[in-house]
């Protein structure tokens, strides 16, 4: 629809200013140059991770500007995944520092998945109560909930750390997940907004047929809200997967630390004089890989949902 509108808008402009006809193409070419440069800056680093991760770390020193992997090898992946012996790793320029990527990958999956399921479920319940049920104080409570959007993370991070510490939940998944799992101002707001837009006729009919409110929620509202529920799940999963500050505080040096924190530790363990760039890039790629898969599967939805959330 928008394209047809754009076409019609061009039409009257052309006869009005014939001498300027050559000008727009130059502007357009510059615009294309900008866009291509922009995309290059955006994408090149991703290629560079791959190129470096497939290189021999020693060979990198001699060919820092080679656009292709230097001395093509899967060694960096083998050593960060713990498939190579220490000798092999050191021979290929590994620092001897190890990272049990498998374990941390598992941790990240547990952390991000559990958090996502809980956030989406709790937000769904609350959103339904705010969108469809009538109870005294509803709007006041909703307003109070929304005010949480104004609290910057840094304000609650330290007190929450103290709380989790007092509860004896430091270095556990429960401690990692709990503070963010039950309440998400954004999640509630986002789902409520969508539910308010759903037609009430179907629910009214079902109510008359004697279905309970709870049955309505799960049999009618949930199926109709699949789109926003997927969106909220994706956004929550992405931010949990990439989270660093909170996991660093609560699980900084333990077996439950997620990939982001483990990557940081791996990097610190790399010697300053001769860092294992190939290994670091291989590990970074493994950490980013699930996001890239999500991107392939849901790219369009993610793009659309970000546009949508911005317009709220």
């Amino acid at each position, binding site marked *: 629809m928008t394209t047809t509108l754009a076409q019609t808008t061009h039409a009257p402009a052309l006869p009005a200013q014939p001498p300027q006809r050559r000008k727009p193409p130059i502007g*357009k070419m510059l615009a294309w140059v900008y*866009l291509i440069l922009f995309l290059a800056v955006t994408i090149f680093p991703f290629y560079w991770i791959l190129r470096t991760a497939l290189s021999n770390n020693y060979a990198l020193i001699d060919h820092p500007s080679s656009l292709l992997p230097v001395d093509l090898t899967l060694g960096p992946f083998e050593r960060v995944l713990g498939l190579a012996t220490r000798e092999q790793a050191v021979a290929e320029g590994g620092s001897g520092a190890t990272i049990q990527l498998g374990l941390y990958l598992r941790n990240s999956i547990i952390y991000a998945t559990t958090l996502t399921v809980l956030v989406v479920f709790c937000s769904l319940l609350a959103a339904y109560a705010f969108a469809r049920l009538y109870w005294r104080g509803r709007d006041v409570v909703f307003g109070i909930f929304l005010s949480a959007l*104004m609290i910057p993370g840094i304000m609650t991070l330290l007190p929450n750390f103290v709380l989790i510490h007092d509860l004896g939940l430091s270095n556990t998944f429960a401690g990692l997940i709990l503070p963010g799992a039950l309440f998400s101002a954004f999640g509630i707001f986002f789902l409520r907004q969508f539910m308010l837009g759903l037609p009430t006729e179907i629910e009214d009919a079902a109510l008359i047929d004697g279905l309970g*409110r709870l049955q309505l929620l799960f049999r009618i509202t949930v199926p109709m809200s699949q789109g926003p529920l997927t969106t909220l799940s994706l956004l929550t999963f992405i931010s949990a997967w990439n989270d660093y500050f909170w996991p660093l505080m609560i699980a900084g040096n333990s077996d439950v630390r997620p990939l982001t924190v483990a990557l*940081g530790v791996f990097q610190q363990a790399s010697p300053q004089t001769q860092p294992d760039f190939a290994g670091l890039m291989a590990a970074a790629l493994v*950490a980013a890989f699930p996001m890239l898969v999500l991107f392939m599967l849901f790219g369009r939805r993610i793009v659309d949902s*970000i546009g949508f959330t*911005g*317009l709220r």
Partner: protein
Amino acid sequence: MVTVATGVPSRRRKSSGPAHHADWRLALVLVLPAAVGFIVFAAVPVLRGIYLSFTRFRILTPPTWTGLDNYRRLFGDDVFWKSLGVTVQYVVLSVILGLAVSLATAVIMHRLTRSTVVRGLVLLPFLVSGVVAALIWQWMLDPGLGIVNVAVKAITGHNVLFLGSQGWVIPTLAFIGVWKSMGYNAILIFAGLQTIPAQIYEAGRLDGASEPRMFAHLTLPLLRPIMAMVAVLTVISSFQVFDLVAVTTKGGPANASNVLPLYIYAKGFSQFDFGYALTMSMALFVLLLAITFVQLRLLRANESDTN
């Protein structure tokens, strides 16, 4: 008198009576998890944070009330002020660079292509963690082997210590931050552009307005609410930058990139001075609230210029 038509609503009213009564109890159950989460992990922590910021608190021993001592100490803490200055530099650079690049990209994308593939690619950096972004750029900017420095050396004859010199470190970190967020912001602004009706431009063209004039007098004013939102979000997230700096420089060289969240973290977790760390987060909180308020006022976020 009672017709079939009025029968339906009256039946609905009847059924909604008891339903409303039951609603109250069900609502309580449904809101309970979120309410517990809000109270235990948001409201109480904020209040507790405020309280603890007036105490001496080293986590293993109970807090002792020290009144305004922490706040007095804050005013005399040179590292804090330096840290605040560095953070403000970072924020200002991020906002200016970030808004300019995102706006330009959004407008150009809007004019050139509706391709979802392009918009998807633009969004890629948003999907990776700050840690991964920091690692890539630290490698690419490495003074010896980094591809950027190889290119810089080929052109200018010498390397640049992007992350290792006091002058370069903050602009470089701001660049990495912008690299990570520019696609996300561009998509937000792009969505805003899509809401502007094409007829407005048509009218502008008929009046003989040039492209730059239309951009300045139509696009920008109409985009004002969304630009304000992007600006506020950028300010808030930039003030809380942590992962980029923690991974690349850890605040160095010579505190030149010791941003406030990093200093707060160091006070709390290296020196176990939680009371003071909380005093600083309070200061940051108040600062953020004030800035957001002023910003929304200045940008009049809720209304676009043309009504």
